[in-house]
């Protein structure tokens, strides 16, 4: 049986892993390759690296990080953050990444999804969507630039279009839940899941073991992503998986 995946997320800035609360108040927490190895040994199913560096020189740094990680961990990992062109995708895939996630760049240029999927295959194109509930509470809008810009696009429609263009997986971050530790945004996840047939990764809001169990018990996601919870040692990946297995949720242990 396919298992539910637990994915630690590492935000990388200037070559170091950082994690902010609601994307502000960044704080350095460690070296990407050694953290990756630590998670690999804990039994993480995948890793996501989000490059939150803006400058070109540091993009090259990211490629070197990917190379270093790929030599040490034998599990899949995704690289995202600021990727704009098929050439940049090729560079991180060649360095050893398995997938790339596209976010703002895909919103600005939706054909980037189609071009990349046809060049590298849908399996390595993850559409990352940050969504926030509209003031009218009648749905969610896509926000970009770390939540600073509301695009006015309906998140569900955008995801449907992204999958049509070739995205093989959705990484859904709820900006309403992110940083709250009150649990994943189940209504948002379920609304997405109803619309698309590709795997959905839940992100934002996880604060406890129960939150992981809840998102899977309610069949709201195929995988769950968390960052600070793992980085600050509140929980290990092993703790989460043991708990999920006790709850009867299929996991790789």
């Amino acid at each position, binding site marked *: 049986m*396919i298992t539910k995946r637990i994915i630690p997320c590492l935000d990388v800035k200037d070559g170091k892993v950082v994690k902010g609360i609601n994307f502000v108040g960044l704080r350095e927490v460690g070296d990407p390759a050694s953290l990756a190895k630590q998670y*690999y040994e804990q039994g993480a*199913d995948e890793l996501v690296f989000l490059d939150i560096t803006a400058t070109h020189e540091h993009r090259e740094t990211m490629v070197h990080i990917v190379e270093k990680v790929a030599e040490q961990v034998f599990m899949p990992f995704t690289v995202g953050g600021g990727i704009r062109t098929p050439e940049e995708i090729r560079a991180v895939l*060649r*360095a*050893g990444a398995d997938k790339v996630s596209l976010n703002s760049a895909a919103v600005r240029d939706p054909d980037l999804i189609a071009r990349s999927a046809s060049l590298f295959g849908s399996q*390595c194109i993850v559409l990352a969507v940050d969504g926030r509930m509209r003031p009218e509470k009648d749905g969610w809008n896509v926000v970009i630039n770390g939540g600073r810009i509301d695009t006015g696009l309906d998140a569900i429609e955008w995801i449907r279009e992204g999958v049509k263009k070739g995205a*093989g*997986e959705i990484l859904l971050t709820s900006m309403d839940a992110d940083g709250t530790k009150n649990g994943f945004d189940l209504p948002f996840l379920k609304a997405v899941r109803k619309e698309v047939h590709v795997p959905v990764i839940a992100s934002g809001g996880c604060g406890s073991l129960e939150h992981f169990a809840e998102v899977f018990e309610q069949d709201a996601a195929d995988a769950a992503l968390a960052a600070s919870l793992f980085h600050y040692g509140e929980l290990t990946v092993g703790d989460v998986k043991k708990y999920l297995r006790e709850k009867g949720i299929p996991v*790789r242990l």
Partner: protein
Amino acid sequence: MIGIIDYGMGNLRSVENALKAIGRECVISDDPAVLHDCDKLILPGVGAFNDCMKNVTDRKLDVFMKEEVSAGKPLLGICLGMQMLYEYSEENGISKGLGFLKGRVTKMITDLPVPEIGWNELEWNHECPLRSLLSEHPYVYYVHSYCAADYDDADLAAYSMYGDIRVCGLVVRGNVMGTQFHPEKSAQDGLKILTYFAEVF
């Protein structure tokens, strides 16, 4: 020396990294002369079946592999490389494969998400020397939308269930081996499968 067949597709670096981690020397090449000197060959693959087969045939690597396999050289196909071992695929119309294994490659029809992305348990179909080398419940990492069908049951060493679909996970026929999953991304059990191919197969 293990030859990783480079036909311009796929993440060859990961396979190379995994072989290095198990202490095996390897060379990435599209040159039949270089690959001919290798003891074993690995055919990786990512992308669409027809694109991959076209790149292989454009480089005449199909003819090369057929010669090497009939001369007894061990060949391991990974993911799309495994699918290419079959007679044909239905991805983007019918495309001919290498035909080392009987069967075709077809789209997975299920209520579960497609592609299948994630770790699935390998279940044994036949006794296989690998069984005693792996964990009691080995999990391996799959990323695919298509899988083998109408295959010879004798070739199927281990499978994984995806909904109702019995996904051909690990196939072995003579000196040809294939994995639909990615052993190079399947942690310790994956590395053990590569070790088996490198040292025993």
